[in-house]
């Protein structure tokens, strides 16, 4: 079903792009959906996270602007993409939101295709206030269009009890490298019989994280596809293969099993974005047994640091829908600057903000009991500031679809260099580079 939906949307998007190229001058511009001048609409996904954040922001904003009407709509991310593509490419603004949340990996694609549709936000935010890796993706041609929101900073979440049974301490988890991580994993498997972590062969997010930790991506700084000569990618694939071969990872096939393995205590750790914390915390019986360490770096790669990112999004304003000033004012007073909001969101939705000043909030220095009394947020905030900036390019997901096959081939024993050369050509053909 997913595949079908995906195919349909991809095909549709391609069609849309070609229609967009024809340049449509529709006369129903500004037939704004927001008939009321004081009303704006926000689209976002994830009821337990982004929507709650938007609601808290709304409450704060209404205190000083009681006349404003703010509608928040929950929609799946794929649905937002499909609707934005259809409407923007036919220049029909009926029912479009004033503010929309866009994932970092996708933002450059939008800004490139539809730069004229987004409102410039340089006047309501200061790029220096945010983590530097986030401000690399929210601008194009030197103009800023997005307010960075959540941090996808990565970390190693691990079970202290299992690590100790394997003969290691929390000290060993500091300045972690992937090599050491696998070594610990083998010991854990031997002593406790549990796996080190889960691995989903159809999701190579792990490789993406490793690459970013070395300041690299599927695309180079200019946005050109960089596969065959990408040392960081090669190093990452090698570690990925080592992990599969080590025999201490549990293979899974979807998100459900991923979270299930954590909640069931089947694995000793997980290396992923900080947004996994609420899912880990769902298992009450494991309280106090978890701790968080830095993201492992790649020992073989000199550029690699103990910080990376996965996921994360930002808020964008659609300027042709109308009420742009109100939308900008809303963002200015909430997500672009409000430290109190960030502080309260840390508590309510475990948001790690990318607003640098947020780390001064009191909730950031609170000890977290579930994670053994660790000051979770101040650590995550610190690592957020260390994430290397990379250019995500326009086609992260399209490239990754093909790269997943390449990685599987290499894990299966194919030669690294020749496979990557072959896929470099394939990917260039696929995205028309």
């Amino acid at each position, binding site marked *: 079903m997913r595949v079908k939906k995906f195919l349909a949307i991809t095909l549709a998007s391609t*069609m849309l792009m070609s229609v967009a190229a024809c340049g449509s001058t529709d006369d129903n511009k500004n037939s704004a959906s927001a008939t009321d001048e004081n009303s704006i609409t926000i689209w976002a996904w994830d009821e337990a996270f982004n929507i709650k954040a938007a609601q808290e922001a709304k409450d704060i904003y209404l205190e000083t602007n009681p006349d404003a009407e703010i509608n928040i709509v929950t929609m799946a991310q794929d*649905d937002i993409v499909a609707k934005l593509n259809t409407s923007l490419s036919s220049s029909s603004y009926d029912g479009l939101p004033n503010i929309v949340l866009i994932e970092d990996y996708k933002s450059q694609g939008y800004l490139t295709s539809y730069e004229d549709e987004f409102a410039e936000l340089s006047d309501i935010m200061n790029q220096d206030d945010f983590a530097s890796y986030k401000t690399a993706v929210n601008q194009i041609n030197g103009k800023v269009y997005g307010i960075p929101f959540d941090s996808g900073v990565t970390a190693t979440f691990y079970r202290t009890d299992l690590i100790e049974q394997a003969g290691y301490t929390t000290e060993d988890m500091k300045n972690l490298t992937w090599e050491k991580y696998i070594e610990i994993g083998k010991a854990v498997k031997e002593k406790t019989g549990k796996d080190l972590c889960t691995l989903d062969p159809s999701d190579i997010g792990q490789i993406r994280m490793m690459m970013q930790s070395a300041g690299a991506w599927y695309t180079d700084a200019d946005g050109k596809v960089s596969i065959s000569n990408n040392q960081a990618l090669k190093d990452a694939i090698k570690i990925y293969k080592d992990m599969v071969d080590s025999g201490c990872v549990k293979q899974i096939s979807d998100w459900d099993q991923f979270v*299930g393995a954590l909640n069931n205590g089947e694995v000793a750790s997980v290396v992923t974005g900080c947004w996994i914390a*609420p899912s880990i915390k769902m298992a009450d019986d494991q309280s106090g047994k978890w701790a968080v360490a830095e993201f492992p770096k790649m020992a073989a790669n000199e550029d690699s640091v103990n910080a990376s990112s996965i996921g994360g999004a930002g808020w964008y304003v659609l300027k042709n829908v109308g009420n742009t000033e109100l939308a900008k004012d809303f963002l200015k007073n909430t997500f672009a600057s409000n430290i109190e909001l960030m502080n309260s969101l840390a508590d309510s939705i475990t948001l790690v903000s990318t607003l640098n000043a947020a780390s001064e909030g009191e909730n950031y220095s609170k000890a977290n009991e579930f994670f053994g009394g660790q000051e979770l947020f101040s650590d995550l905030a610190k690592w957020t500031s260390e994430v290397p900036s990379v250019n995500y390019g326009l086609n992260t997901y399209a490239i990754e679809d093909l790269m997943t096959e390449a990685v599987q081939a290499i894990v299966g024993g194919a030669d690294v260099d020749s496979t990557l050369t072959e896929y470099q050509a394939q990917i260039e053909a696929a995205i028309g580079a």
Partner: protein
Amino acid sequence: MTKQAKILNIVQYIVLIILTIISVFPFFWMIVAATNPSVEVTKGTLTFGSYFTENLKTLLSSDLQFINAFKNSLFIAVITTTLAMIVSSAAGYAFEVYKNKTRDKVFNFVLLSMMVPFAALMVPLFRLFSNFNKVPVLENIGLNTNGSVIIIAIATAFLIFFFRQNTRTFPKDLIEAARIDGLGEFEIFARIYMPTMKSTYAAAVVVTFMTSWNNYLWPLIALQSPEKRTLPLILSAMGSSYTPDYGMMMTAVVISTLPTALLFFFMQKQFVAGMTGSVKG
């Protein structure tokens, strides 16, 4: 019964039982999941829990407007099915009963539209419907109206084709006899054809209702405001999340499955008869 036949019989039953379990398991899992909190679902618990009312409460109190979406879906599905039965069956009937030169060419053209994927029609349709919004009367089927979802589903190539095929088995003598008895063409259709083809209609009702109930892509882009959304859109919105509430989602899915399941159970017999194309004249 010989020994050999007995063994064969046992093997057959075993195979059938296995296949039944495979087909029923997802439904079983869905219902079990609806009675458990999210964390139990991810743990893979397979026993019934006592969390159903909690899940239901979360579902109803979330601002996704589930009840409203259910109403929208039901309204759209019922109206679509009713109209589609009238329009498509009349078309299928006409294609078979009235002979003329261009008939088959027109019919081929209709069939051809089955080959065009909906995704290719999406943008032209979207632009067309957004223009409807500016015209009086037509604005009732413009974007963001229930009408926009209904209108494009009432005459589908599949249904017309389906009715035409089944009309072949309809005894033409009945029409001749009715004409001699002085019935008008419309009355023949309404009073002779429709009652005779009950099982065909039943099959078509089930198919159309399900298609409309599950329709996703067009409602997604045509329905703009949150209070107009249908069930598939709401379910989809629940899915994309860092920490999805599986218990609530499954409760929503169980409730969404009910209408189609009930419809199918009630019309099962006619559905099978209609699909195999038998007419009891």
